[in-house]
């Protein structure tokens, strides 16, 4: 069974601060995705990383996939109140495995950015 441990579970910060959310596993994933969910809506895909060591930037958000494809991080620079939401990481299984086509989700990080 593939598991993803996400930390921290809760994060409350002031506008302008930086933060990092971590997603760790003992399993290797073929891909790693980050989603953001706002209240009353479904999760929205932010980014997919597939190569070990890959770094992707989306404005103030930086996503990194670990070299061994077992972990990932999301770093937000100069957080804004609009960044508030639930952040979820999700790992994709390997082709041919029992988890092919499925995602394993982390427990989520609830981020609150205060003005």
């Amino acid at each position, binding site marked *: 069974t593939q598991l993803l441990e996400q930390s921290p579970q809760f994060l409350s910060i002031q506008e302008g601060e930086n933060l990092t959310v971590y997603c760790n596993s003992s399993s290797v994933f073929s891909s790693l995705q980050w*989603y953001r969910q706002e209240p009353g809506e*479904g999760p929205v*895909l932010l980014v*997919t990383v597939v190569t070990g060591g890959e770094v992707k930037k989306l404005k103030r958000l930086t996503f990194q996939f670990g070299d061994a494809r077992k972990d990932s991080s999301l770093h937000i620079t100069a957080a804004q109140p609009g960044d508030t939401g639930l952040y979820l990481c*999700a790992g994709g299984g390997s082709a041919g495995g029992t988890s092919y086509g*499925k995602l394993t*989700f982390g427990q989520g990080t609830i981020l609150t950015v205060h003005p």
Partner: protein
Amino acid sequence: GAGVSQSPSNKVTEKGKDVELRCDPISGHTALYWYRQSLGQGLEFLIYFQGNSAPDKSGLPSDRFSAERTGGSVSTLTIQRTQQEDSAVYLCASSLVTSGGKYEQYFGPGTRLTVT
């Protein structure tokens, strides 16, 4: 193009009643997933349909839960004899599963189920 749609958006039902939740996936997506989410929590996998393969039902919490996908498109999640612990948001997602292993899932807005 249109995203994933779900109906109803909210459903209030009495304990013991049956409910049906509907999901319309993105056209052309071969995979469809159902998840359950309690307030502020992560996603609990329920069931996964991929093409013509037998569905992966490993996440269904009890035999009161069932789902079907007709014609490879629309899916219905049925909960029989609802219990108060079934109250949650039920999310549907669809994906174009590829051998590249991205499995990018696109979610609907969810159905909020309240069992009284």
